[in-house]
C-alpha cells in the first residue's frame, strides 16, 4: 500500500509526466490558453490514461513479453518488439471509445474538446506512460496507480498553466518573447516549483 501511495505521489509531483519528462507538450501548449478547455482536456487525459495503462499492461504481459505466450503453448516466443504498434493501436481504439461516450452523454464537453480529443491519441504522455510502465516493470496494481497519477499530474500542470496565463494576460512582455517563448519560460519556472517536492518520501 505504501508503495502504491509512493508511486502515485511521485508520478503526480516529482516525476510529473509533463514537467519532468516533457511528454504531452504539444496539446499542452495548444490548449493552455483557456481554463475551461484545459480542465476538460485534463479530465479526458486522466480518464484515457487510467484505462490505457492497465490495458497495455495486460497486453504486454499476456501477449508480448518474453514467455508471455506460454498459455497458448508457445513459451519461446518473444514479441516485445511489437509493443510500440500494439500500444498505439490500443490507445487509438480507446480514445475513439471515449470520444463516442462523451459525444453521447455530454454534448457540451464534446463541443468544448472538439479537435483535441483525437489529438490525445498522439499525446506523447499517453504512449510514454505505457512505455515507462514497461521499462520500470510495474505490477498490475502499480500500473493502475501510475496511469491515474500521471494523468492527474498532467491535468494539474495544464490547469495551473492556464490559470497562470490568465493572470498574465495583461502583463507587459518584451516583444520578441511574446507567445511561445514566454510560455516556455513560465513552464520552466513552474517545473522548478514542482521539483521542490522531490524531498518527500513515505
Amino acid at each position, binding site marked *: 500500500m505504501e508503495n502504491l501511495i509512493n508511486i502515485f505521489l511521485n508520478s503526480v509531483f516529482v516525476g510529473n509526466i509533463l514537467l519532468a519528462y516533457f511528454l504531452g507538450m*504539444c496539446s499542452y501548449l495548444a490548449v493552455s490558453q483557456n481554463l475551461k478547455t484545459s480542465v476538460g482536456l485534463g479530465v479526458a487525459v486522466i480518464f484515457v490514461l487510467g484505462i490505457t495503462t492497465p490495458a497495455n499492461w495486460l497486453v504486454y504481459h499476456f501477449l508480448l513479453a518474453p514467455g508471455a505466450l506460454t498459455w497458448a503453448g508457445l513459451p519461446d516466443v518473444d514479441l516485445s*518488439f511489437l509493443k510500440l*504498434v500494439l500500444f498505439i493501436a490500443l490507445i487509438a481504439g480507446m480514445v475513439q471509445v471515449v470520444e463516442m461516450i462523451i459525444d453521447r452523454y455530454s454534448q457540451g464537453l464534446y463541443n468544448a474538446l472538439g479537435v483535441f480529443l483525437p489529438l490525445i491519441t*498522439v499525446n506523447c504522455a499517453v504512449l510514454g506512460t505505457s512505455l515507462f510502465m514497461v521499462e520500470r516493470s510495474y505490477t498490475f496494481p502499480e500500473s493502475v496507480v501510475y496511469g491515474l497519477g500521471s494523468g492527474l499530474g498532467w491535468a494539474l500542470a495544464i490547469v495551473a498553466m492556464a490559470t497562470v496565463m490568465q493572470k498574465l494576460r495583461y502583463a507587459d512582455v*518584451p516583444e520578441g*518573447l511574446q507567445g511561445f*517563448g514566454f510560455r*516556455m519560460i513560465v513552464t*520552466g*519556472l513552474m517545473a522548478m516549483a514542482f521539483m521542490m517536492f522531490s524531498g518527500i518520501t513515505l
Partner: protein
Amino acid sequence: MDTTAARPWSGIRKTFTYKAISDALWQSNPISKQILGICSALAVTVQLNTAIVMSLALTFVVSFSNLVISSMRTLIPRNIRIIVEVAVIATLVILADEFLKAFMYDISKQLSVFVGLIITNCIVMGRAETYAMANPPIRSFVDGLANGIGYGSILCGVAFFRELLGAGKLMGYQVVPQVLYNAGYENMGLMLLAPGAFIIIGLFVWLEHVFLKD
C-alpha cells in the same frame, strides 16, 4: 548581364524542392515556429551525444515515412489514412529502435523510451498528413529530410548549451578548463534538470524572433 548569370542560385531558388527545404529549415522551422515535436525534444538534450542520435533517428523516420506514404498516396482510402500513416511510421520507428539497440546500446539505453515516442511526434504525423499526402515521392522525401534537419538544429543547439553550462563538457569531453574551476567557476546544475531545458528553449525563441524579424 542578365540576372541569372549574376546570381547562379536564383534558378534553384524557384524550384519546389528549394522552397520545401528553406521552409523547413528557416521560415517555418518545426520546433521554433510551428511548435511541433517538442514532446521528445527536451528530454534528450542533457547531452550533445544523445541529441545528435535522436536527430538522426527522427530524420530517418520522417524522410522515409514521407517517401513511403507519398508513394502510396493515391492508394490510401481517405477514411483510414491516419491508421495507415501510423502503421508506416511505427514500422520505421521499430526499425530505428532495433538498429540503435544492436549497434549503439549505451546511447539507446540513455534515450530509453524516447525513440519509441517518435511515433507520437507531431512533426512526423504533421508532415505525412500535410505534405506527403499531396506531393510526389522525391519531393516529400526531401521535405522530410529538411524537417528532420530543422528539428535537429534546435535539438543540438539546446543540447550544446545544456551540456556546456551544466556539466562543462561537450560530447562527453571536458571543455571548460580546470583553471576556471580553480578560479571559482561552478557548473550550473539547473541546466541538467528539466526547468533548464524549458528556459533555454524560451530564450532561443526570443533570440530568433529578435534577429529574424522580417
